[in-house]
């Protein structure tokens, strides 16, 4: 089958049944939030899931303009290509983009190299996110997390209740029956909403391919300067990255399956240079995408712990 045929059919009508169902479910969830909350926001992490989420939001509210802002929590350690892509996306779509950095963390010199991944994530991501939500008084925040990513995420509701202080208590989540979402909260309480809950990584890539959704070029294989550490390829993105005495960056054909802060996200060797290549690679891979996220294996059940503290 010719790929170009698939792409021209890649409108809503031409989408495969399964993706069409997922798309409709996500749109329903997004409209629910706009109808029920006073001040929603969409977390935008620049990655592939955020790209899909943004694309779905534009569809959900069409012909109205996007009725909520995007929020990017900038740890100051994102790949340069990510920041360029972020700004270009906001400009291209005319979107209200908020960028928040934990200035207190910057002043204290917190970073993945100096402080270690655990402290960096806590201060520059989790704390920063909570600051931004409080600063603007957002009562609902969309996130692009999927249940297939990680096993504590598989337990997550679509409407995830957070008590004052953004605390997630997995034992005290509301039962979520049918599509009847309970959106009621008291002042100070918030809801995190996950419209991509039922998408898998493969669904995301198929959808990106069929809908021609722009993504950060780092997802495509290219010769990039990397060093080998703890069995992982780490990209040298700028001179803040301290090389060990015996380390010399070498050029390898690599790409990223997941994007986070640059010293904490590993690249994989790959020759996938098109979306079609990526989808083919996805079908034969034997490792999970979070393998590339070094922060996840810090401690057992660490995703759950981070989520309790207010992480997405």
């Amino acid at each position, binding site marked *: *089958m*010719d*790929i170009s045929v*698939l792409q021209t059919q890649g*409108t*809503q*009508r031409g989408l*495969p*049944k*399964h*993706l*069409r*169902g997922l*798309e*409709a479910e996500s*749109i*329903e969830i997004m*409209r*629910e939030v*706009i*109808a029920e909350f006073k001040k929603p926001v969409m977390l935008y992490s620049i990655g592939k899931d955020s790209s899909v989420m943004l694309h779905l939001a534009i569809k*959900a509210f*069409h*012909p*109205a*303009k996007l009725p909520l802002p995007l929020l990017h929590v900038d740890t100051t350690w994102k790949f340069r290509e990510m920041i360029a892509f972020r700004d270009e996306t906001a400009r291209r779509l005319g979107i209200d983009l908020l960028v928040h950095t934990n200035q207190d963390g910057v002043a204290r010199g917190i970073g993945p190299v100096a402080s270690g991944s655990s402290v960096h994530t806590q201060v520059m991501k989790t704390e920063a996110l909570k600051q931004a939500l409080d600063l603007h008084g957002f009562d609902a925040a969309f996130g692009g997390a999927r*249940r297939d990513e990680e*096993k*504590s*995420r*598989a*337990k997550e509701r679509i409407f995830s209740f957070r008590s004052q202080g953004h605390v997630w208590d*997995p*034992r005290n*989540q509301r*039962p979520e*029956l*049918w599509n*009847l*979402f*309970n959106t*009621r909260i*008291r002042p100070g309480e918030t809801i995190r909403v996950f419209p991509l809950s039922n998408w*898998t990584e*493969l*669904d995301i890539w198929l959808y990106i*391919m*069929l809908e021609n959704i722009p993504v950060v070029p780092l997802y495509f294989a290219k010769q990039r300067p990397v060093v080998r550490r703890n069995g992982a390829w780490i990209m040298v993105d700028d001179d803040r990255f301290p090389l060990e005495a015996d380390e010399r960056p070498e050029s390898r054909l690599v790409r990223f399956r997941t994007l986070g802060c640059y010293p904490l996200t590993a690249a994989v060797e790959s020759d996938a240079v098109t979306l079609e*290549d990526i*989808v*083919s690679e996805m*079908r*034969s891979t*034997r*490792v*999970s995408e979070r*393998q590339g996220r070094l922060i996840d294996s810090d401690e*057992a*059940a660490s995703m*759950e712990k981070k989520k309790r503290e207010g992480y997405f």
Partner: protein
Amino acid sequence: MDGVAPTVQQANKDLLRFLTCGSVDDGKSTLIGRLLHDSKQIFDDQLSELTRESTRRGATGDEVDLSLLVDGLEAEREQGITIDVAYRFFSTPKRSFIVADTPGHEQYTRNMATGASKADLAILLIDARKGVLLQTQRHSLICSLLGLRHVVIAVNKIDLVSYQANVFERIVVEYRAFASELGFSSIMAIPVSARDGDNVTRRSDHTPWYRGPTLLDYLETVDSDSETNEEPFRFPVQWVNRSTPDFRGYAGTVVSGHIKAGDPVTVAASGQSSRVKELLTYEGPQPSAETGDAITITLADEIDIARGDLLVGPILGPEVSDQFAAHIIWMSNQALIPGRSYLARIGTKTTPITVTGIKYKIDVNTREHLATHTLGLNDIAFCNLATAAPVAFDPYEQNRKTGSFILIDRLSNHTVGAGMIAFGLRRGTNLHRQATLIGKAERAAQKHQKPAIVWLTGLSGAGKSTIANIAERQLHAAGHHTMLLDGDNVRLGLNRDLGFTEADRVENIRRAGEVAKLLADSGLIVLCCFISPYAADREMLRRLVPDGEFIEVFVDTPIDECARRDPKGLYAKAKAGKIKNFTGFDAPYEAPANPEIHLHTTGQQAEQLAERLTAKLAELGIIR
């Protein structure tokens, strides 16, 4: 390149949503782990982590504990049980699957019901050594109530009964006898070992007597037809899109049936009709839309439509009523009390609702109907309910989307119940609210005042009546028109049929509130003295009147002080055990969190407190 086209085609196959349920330790999580593992959904790094964790948790050799793949919470892995629903995804060349792994413990039954609400099929695990258990029956009943049509009995741990055919057959016969009245359209029984994989994805050599399909074969081929295009058109309006001043688009999802541009549609509750002008998506106007499509509808005429309305086709309309009968699964530790006001979410509509009567509770063992006054956690009952305004619905049996609702506690905002509507009750249909020519505003204007309900709550002996009496005298002297409702007086007349159980207290306050509302409608300032111990009921009172007209006054006297004063000698009797359900002793008092007026009475004279009350009323703009 050649890998992509088949992948896209694969995404075109259909989807089966199922859940696994059954009693604790029957092996639900292990079975899902086995399905994921054997269908190659587990990546190498996840498998090596699983092996490490299995060893750490005491598995021997290279055995892996597959349940650890799905028990995602730390507490679950520590206790070795499933607490919450986990959703997992896998696919085979024939089908995609969404699996809900649900807990077996009775205390987490609500999470099992959650998983069942969205499923097409249930795999009910039965431990071959234990047979049909109470929890097996409970889960079967819930699956039946929630409208699942297909059940697979997976008789698990068949290896532990030496693969004996007669053990399997005995369980199947017993289960079929139990389930015969539950209305499932198919019951399939398969002997399996989730741990070893027998008959899960591969045929077992140990069970030559079993000639049916493996579990996965069956899941791939069972009729998943949830196609609802043939059903009448239903479209709950989710959000009104007003992108420009002259654009009104009704955004939502077609929950059943289909619709074409030009088709006639009706707003179910108001009966107003129009025609579909356009069916809009981001891709442009569409000629038609089917069940499951998220679209935006524009109409040929301007009619009044808001979120919560149900758009329907011209034939086979839904029922519209403010009263209906429904099955309820109660999900809260706090009892369901008839008469108490909850919020119901039906479709996209949220409306106040009360249970007007519990017809019976269902005994899960015997399916006997039992009489009861309240419902506790995990109780299943058949009830009559009344909503504040008419709602449009279908019987749940006919339409899971328009026949289901959840109940929300008005104070905590917790989801406390799930409901499946059986049928509408006609009682309300001949009652219509009569608009009066002279309204509350006119009546109040004539008296030169703003009407209000001033509600004094507090313990018995706190001083409510004393303060209210003095305050009323002051208001009266200042020329205000007032009325005083006192708890004891109301109980001697209107409410003399009520006692002091929680249910009766709720009804006592409901009636008193309705009387106070009528008095306020006549333009009066109504002072009410009721212990009114439950926050939820006071919240209900607040919603009876427009914002600002309900003034909650907390007469705050410590219980020791009330007992010392004991004006009616009730505390002495309560101490002597002569009164049951006495507030502060063996019945709770939920103090107001944010009352409009908070009167600390200790060391204060009643006159001063009454003056503070009237001064506050002036501050709030009720009196001048």
